[in-house]
């Protein structure tokens, strides 16, 4: 079931250089060739081995991953001091990965996580990178997603939602965009993490969303993807953040969706994985950032189609009328958009090659000793483990119309079917069941 694409379809800059240019390749081409060589070496190996060995190579080494992840939760070496202001992130990367693998931690460890995150919660709302650090939107997002992933009442009720709302409001700039922390930088990440947290906690309102949409709209570049700030380069991470935030505030139709889809579709390359920007190198973490965008798009294709048609007829984009009308599921409140979104119909398969992506993740990103890495030649870490597994889940379920009740078909899951992970809610990147549990909790309290 190998999915090595034919070279005629390659879109990377190194493909078929003109003969007279081979002597004088640019840095981008040289770096690209180096990576392609390593990746194809692995794929060629795959085509030469017996079916049994092939199936072993395609296996997800669950026990090793759990071992690597659990160890990190209990103890990290001195070299982790560089992540001393990101400890809620470490909790999220590890616990979300464990949950994706269908496992959970024992109740003692779970209580320890809740207790630790409570120490990171600021007295005026929001979570910092460690006990006593200033609250920061990114670590707040990580802490909230971690607690939703744990899912116990103790975990969910440990979040001070009243103060959280005040914190979010304090991070909102007069322009409408959000700052990462008091006096901090303003970018699309900040908008997404603020909106995601507010939506998850059922505290999203018209004050918080004011002018967020126009900020994100200004960050969409001529290439089609979304940048961190207006003018910057289209980038996978910001594109996910921008699109997810736009959907959560019901303003996705303000983006040029056909152009966005085209840009993301072209980010998957001959290595089978995704790159983060045009002419940059493949990296396993973009399996989620870019793959996640196309997963979200599967529910927006009718809007994108209408935009294409409108631009053909009128010579320009949209008439300003909201095309993504969610009345089919009538969200009473802004915070319910994330809930309604999952009920929207998935009209067709993924717009990326999901089996090829799984091949890159299992063969090029997976580390046999446990954990995942960016690309061959790099080291594993918790960040890449989280986003490679998230991307793997997204691709396994990418043909599924109702992941909770109709699991994927065997041919949609590369390798043994036991590779199947838990499905996620792609707007928040938490396990789908945990999302529903959290949503119910925050809707009723």
């Amino acid at each position, binding site marked *: 079931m190998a999915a090595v*694409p*034919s070279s*005629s*379809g390659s*879109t990377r*800059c190194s*493909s078929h*250089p003109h003969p007279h240019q081979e002597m004088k390749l*640019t*840095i981008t081409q040289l770096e690209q060739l180096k990576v392609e060589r390593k990746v194809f070496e692995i794929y060629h190996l795959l085509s030469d081995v017996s079916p049994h060995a092939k199936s072993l190579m395609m296996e997800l080494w669950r026990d090793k991953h759990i071992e690597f992840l659990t160890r990190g939760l209990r*103890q*990290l070496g*001195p070299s*982790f*001091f*560089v*992540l*001393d*202001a990101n*400890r809620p992130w*470490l*909790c999220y990367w*590890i616990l979300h990965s464990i949950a994706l693998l269908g496992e959970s931690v024992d109740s003692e460890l779970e209580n*320890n996580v809740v207790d*630790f995150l409570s*120490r990171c919660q600021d007295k005026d709302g929001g979570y910092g990178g460690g006990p*006593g*650090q*200033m609250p920061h939107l990114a670590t707040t997002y990580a802490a909230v997603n971690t607690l939703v992933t744990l899912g116990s009442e103790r975990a969910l009720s440990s979040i001070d939602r009243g103060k959280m709302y005040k914190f979010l409001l304090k991070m909102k700039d007069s322009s409408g965009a959000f700052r*990462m922390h008091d006096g*901090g*930088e303003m970018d699309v990440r900040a908008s997404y993490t603020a909106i995601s947290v507010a939506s998850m906690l059922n505290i999203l309102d018209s004050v918080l969303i004011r002018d967020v949409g126009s900020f994100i709209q200004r960050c969409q*570049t*001529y290439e*089609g993807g979304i940048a*961190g700030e207006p*003018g910057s*380069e289209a*980038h996978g991470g910001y594109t996910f953040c921008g699109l997810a935030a736009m959907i959560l505030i019901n303003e996705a139709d303000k983006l040029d969706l056909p152009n966005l*889809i*085209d*840009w993301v*579709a072209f980010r*998957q390359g*001959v290595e089978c994985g995704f790159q983060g920007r*045009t*002419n940059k190198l493949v990296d396993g973490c973009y399996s989620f950032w870019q793959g996640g965008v196309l997963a979200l798009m599967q529910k927006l294709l009718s809007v*994108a189609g209408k935009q*294409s048609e409108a631009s*053909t*007829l009128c*010579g*320009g984009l949209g008439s300003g009328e909201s095309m993504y009308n969610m009345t089919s599921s009538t969200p009473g409140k802004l915070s319910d958009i994330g809930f309604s979104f999952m009920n929207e119909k998935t009209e*067709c*398969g*993924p*717009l*990326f*090659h999901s089996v*090829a992506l799984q091949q890159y993740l299992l063969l090029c990103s997976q580390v046999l000793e446990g954990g995942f890495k960016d690309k061959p030649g790099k080291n594993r870490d918790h960040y890449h483990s989280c986003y490679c597994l998230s991307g793997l889940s997204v691709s396994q379920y990418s043909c599924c119309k109702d992941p909770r009740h109709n699991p994927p078909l065997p041919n949609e899951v590369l390798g043994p079917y036991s590779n199947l992970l838990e499905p996620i809610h792609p707007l928040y990147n938490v396990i789908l069941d945990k999302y529903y549990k959290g949503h119910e909790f925050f809707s009723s309290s």
Partner: protein
Amino acid sequence: MSSDDGEERVPLSRRPEWADVRPLPQDDGPNPVVPIAYREDFREAMDYFRAVYLADERSLRSLNLTSEVIAMNPGNYTVWHFRRLVLETLNVGLLEERDYVDHVAEHNSKNYQIWHHRRWLAEKLGPKAANKELEFTKKILTIDAKNYHAWSHRQWVLQALGGWDDELDYCQKLIEDDVFNNSAWNQRYFVITRSPFLGGLQASRESEVSYAIEAIMANPENESPWRYLRGLYKNDIDQFLSDNHVSEACLKVLKSGHNFLFALSLFLDLLCFGFQPSDEFKRVVEGLRNSVASSSDANLATSVCNILETVDPLRANYWAWRRSTLPSIVC
């Protein structure tokens, strides 16, 4: 850990000027998760930092302490934030602070905090700082020509402080160095559309179209100039359709018979917007269709999607979706 000048670092507990401060341990609780086995010097410096931070002591020794802590972990945004509060209170020389950031950034050029601090600093220094900031980003971009933070900072400097004069030349140089550097193309688009001295996209379109097409002809497999070319007609579909240069560039690459993916993709966009292809176009597409043996269709755009689906199997689903959403007026 030894300090920069190679001397042995004296623990804070043994420095007389810190004798009056009681270090504040991290409140990790009895059973912390993701605990980091801090080295002793790191733990100690952080304990003293927590003490002055909590006491809001905006003193020179606090400033020096933030330097020490930042040297150990430049990702700690709380320390940077406190450093700014101290700097504002003490009214320390901003030029001195800039030298300090120059130094820290050399080894940490992909750290959000440093660039944010740099922006805060440059904003205080005003337009006279523009040149220095542009030089600084240039230095970082010499090491990594795609450093995202450096480009964002550079754009902010241009817009907030000025210094546009040589920017187009700079983009040109970087594109010459590496025509696949998409960040440089993005910067070029930024300059063309936003420089107060160039008259906007329309004024530059003709020359930019030629520039992009020249790059395309040299490397038709390079996606950057194709996206740039398409971007030059953003919000101006009429020009996109009527400008022969675009369709001629597509035709030329299609006729060559190889590395035509982006050309065919752009040709599909043209068709979707109502472009009326010449007989030659139809012949060339039919020739391609035959050579890759994809299914034929009376509708040209459908044929194009079929070819794309065949030659670009990685995006087969995408091209199938494009085929399913072809506007009814498309031929």
